[in-house]
């Protein structure tokens, strides 16, 4: 039964669960349901266990609410009260919508992180399977070194998202739908509301002033859409609208924006005006004067719409640039891009200078300003030309020898005639062939089969897994030395027993398997050597400890 200290937020009667009538209770930390007439709760779920909620679509006869838990199970509640079923369901849904996000964050982030790491790294996953699932080491030890980063609350790089700007068409996306009889339905999502607040800070101001003291949210938005502020023809006729002030503020902002002009001195917006040469070239009629009386109604409404478009675009751009200041208070929201600043003028001259300089100077045409370098001064450059052939004492040939040799060869070649049928004897040829055949004099040291061609690939894969697992265990073992604390002592002893267990459960069966398959190569020798080194180190440490104690 609910403890007395639990605060009940909502009670909904006549809620069926699994074809049983009962009552639904929404508490501060959990949601529970008890059958009719009974005191205890048969169904109770903490908000932190609930992953999400689902509701049945509006058209259906049954009004249902489904809760999906993290474990995958789901519980369905059927609101059976004839008159208020929909309202009840909506109330429950709203409350859950507010409560669930609070509890979601407390869900075990660590568990998610672990799962993510295991899924992303197949090697890690294999290691986990080899070591933890087969009980060689415990899960805590496995995760001990790997989750260090999580506790530092460092934002992982993948969560850095870019700021999303505002779509220029957000107002158009609202797209009213006719509600049947003369009414309009506006669908407002939180995104659109946020866009409106970011673009029109005046509206946000009004919202914070009026909601929830004077108006509910729904009323506020209804009034917003009804106001002329929103509609096309903004005819400001002093209505009792809360938004008329907004309209006035917008006008002021637009005016100051126009007065501020463009920062770039090289861009002359005024030259883009329509100019006529004469009547008939360009604009048909004379330039419209600025006095109100001359304007036709159509012209003035066009001008008003254009003004609104310009203002809207300016606000959207400004909101994008203002993103860092959004949480600040109202006073500081009048930034320079809003057209309401005083210090934009202050920065005018340097900006102008920079722009002018950019336009005049070209970087590649400037004189190169390289650092002064020192010239390379080689004294004995012929050293480079001499190859790595060490200076050996060459065979000394006397000039007489040279002359003799040259004469001999000259004499021989003077009567040279190719005798291609007597190039070599068959014995010489056959001995050459023997030397070149596999196993011959010249063929030593080559054509050794690579070991990876002789061992089947599944054995290779298993060997790799063994190496990874052994490496992990040995890393834990060797990191304990030098053994300073009692924690390290225990860990060393535990790791040694882990290593022995590993050798027994994984390495020896693998060896036997190799022997059964008649694979002659010694694949496990190195692993055993590593384990043996670890054992001897442990033995030495143990004897030293014994000696110290005695």
């Amino acid at each position, binding site marked *: 039964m609910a403890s007395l200290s639990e605060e009940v937020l909502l009670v909904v009667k006549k809620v069926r669960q699994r074809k049983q009538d009962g009552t639904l209770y929404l508490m501060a930390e959990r949601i529970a349901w008890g059958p009719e007439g009974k005191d205890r709760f048969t169904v109770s779920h903490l908000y932190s266990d609930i992953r999400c909620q689902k509701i049945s679509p509006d058209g259906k006869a049954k009004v249902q609410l489904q809760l999906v838990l993290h474990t995958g199970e789901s519980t369905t509640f059927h609101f059976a009260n004839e008159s208020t079923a929909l309202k009840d369901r909506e109330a429950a849904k709203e409350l859950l919508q507010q409560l669930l996000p609070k509890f979601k964050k407390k869900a075990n982030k660590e568990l998610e992180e672990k799962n993510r790491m295991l899924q992303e790294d197949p090697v890690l996953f294999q290691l986990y399977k080899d070591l933890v699932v087969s009980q060689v080491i415990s899960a805590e030890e496995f995760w001990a070194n790997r989750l260090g980063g999580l506790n530092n609350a460092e934002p992982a790089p993948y969560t850095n998202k870019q700021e999303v700007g505002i779509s220029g068409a957000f107002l158009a996306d609202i797209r009213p739908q006719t509600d049947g009889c003369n009414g309009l339905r506006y669908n407002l999502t939180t995104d659109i509301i946020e866009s409106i607040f970011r673009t029109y800070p005046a509206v946000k101001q009004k919202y914070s002033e009026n909601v929830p003291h004077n108006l509910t949210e729904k009323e506020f938005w209804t009034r917003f859409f009804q106001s002329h502020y929103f509609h096309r023809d903004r005819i400001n006729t002093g209505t009792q609208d809360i938004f008329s002030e907004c309209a006035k503020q917008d006008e002021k902002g637009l005016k100051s924006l126009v007065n501020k002009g463009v920062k770039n001195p090289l861009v002359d917006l005024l030259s883009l005006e329509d100019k006529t040469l004469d009547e008939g070239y360009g604009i048909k009629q004379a330039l419209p004067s600025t006095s109100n009386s001359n304007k036709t109604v159509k012209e003035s409404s066009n001008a008003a719409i254009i003004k609104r478009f310009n203002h809207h675009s300016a606000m959207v751009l400004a909101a994008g640039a203002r993103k860092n200041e959004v949480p600040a208070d109202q006073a500081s929201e009048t930034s320079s891009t809003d057209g309401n600043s005083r210090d934009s003028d202050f920065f005018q001259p340097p900006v102008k200078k920079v722009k002018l300089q950019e336009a005049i100077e070209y970087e590649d045409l400037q004189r190169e300003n390289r650092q002064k370098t020192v010239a390379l001064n080689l004294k004995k450059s012929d050293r480079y030309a001499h190859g790595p052939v060490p*200076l050996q004492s060459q065979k000394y040939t006397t000039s007489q*020898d*040279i002359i003799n040799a040259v004469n001999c060869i000259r004499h021989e070649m003077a009567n040279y005639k190719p005798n291609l049928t007597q190039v070599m004897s068959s014995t010489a040829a056959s001995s050459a062939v023997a030397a070149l055949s596999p196993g011959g004099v010249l063929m030593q040291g080559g054509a050794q089969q690579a070991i990876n061609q002789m061992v089947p690939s599944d054995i290779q894969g298993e060997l790799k897994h063994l190496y990874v697992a052994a490496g992990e265990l040995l890393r834990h073992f060797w990191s304990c030395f030098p053994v300073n604390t009692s924690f390290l002592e225990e860990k060393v002893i535990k790791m040694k027993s882990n290593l022995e267990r590993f050798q027994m459960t994984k390495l020896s069966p693998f060896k036997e398997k190799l022997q059964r398959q008649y694979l002659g190569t010694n694949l496990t020798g190195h692993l055993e050597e590593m384990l043996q080194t670890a054992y001897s180190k442990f033995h030495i440490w143990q004897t030293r400890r014994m000696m110290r104690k005695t």
Partner: protein
Amino acid sequence: MASEDEVNLLVIVVDVNPIWWGQQAQREPEFTLSKCLDAVMVMGNSHLALTRTNKLAVIASHCQDSHFLYPSKSLGGGDGAADDVSSTRDGKYELLAVANSTIAEEIRNVLSKAEVRGNSTDTLLAGSLAKALCYIHRVSKELEVGQEIKSRILVIKAAEDCALQYMNFMNVIFAAQKQNILIDACVLDSDSGLLQQACDITGGLYLKIPQKLALAQYLLWVFLPDSEQRSQLVLPPPAHVDYRAACFCHRNLIEIGYVCSVCLSIFCNFSPICTTCETAFKIQLPQMVKPKKKKLKMPA
């Protein structure tokens, strides 16, 4: 198996250093330059006979210059060539006959004219390789549209390496590597580090022959197939190449040394001034801690 349009060019560079060969004739009269050239001719004929589109070039590398034995300049016209050909009359494939006779004639000319001076007794191998590369380049430019060419150079080396040609040699090797030209080496007498490097870098085969008499057999077995076919055959494995650098001071081959960061010259010992570019190097010595002088307390 190769397509009709693929031209395979083999350039054989023969080391005809007269001093070495003269001494060789005195050492081993059975195997002299004549026998060597016979073996080269057999190799060349075999190469030409393999495919109709195969081409051959033979360069003789001498102490003073390198000379094209085949194709020779006088091959274009002249009745002399025609006479030679008709005189064989043994039904030999004309191309082979012409090649053989040209080679024989040219080598006779080369060796009869050559004069050797005392100070230049080394074979100009780098120059011959450079000429071979130029020839290959020229032939590949003269191809018809659509023809591809694959070329390789076979070096038959007799005398020892010349250390002075190192720079040129390395340039030639890298140029060949860029052009995808294999350099094979068949060494008769003493191992040559430069040729080992050349073969390693360009992907060719290096072989030091134990028996000079069976030179033709080695040439046909190992060096006749081209690079595609070599991957299908079991050939002598590549030798380990000693790529160690030599220090600039003693010319010893060293594994670990000191390199000047300015001029990149290699030394085996540290010296505070680099002797090549005269840069001074400062090395921080460990700080000397001065012992504190203890004040003696004077008794009052």
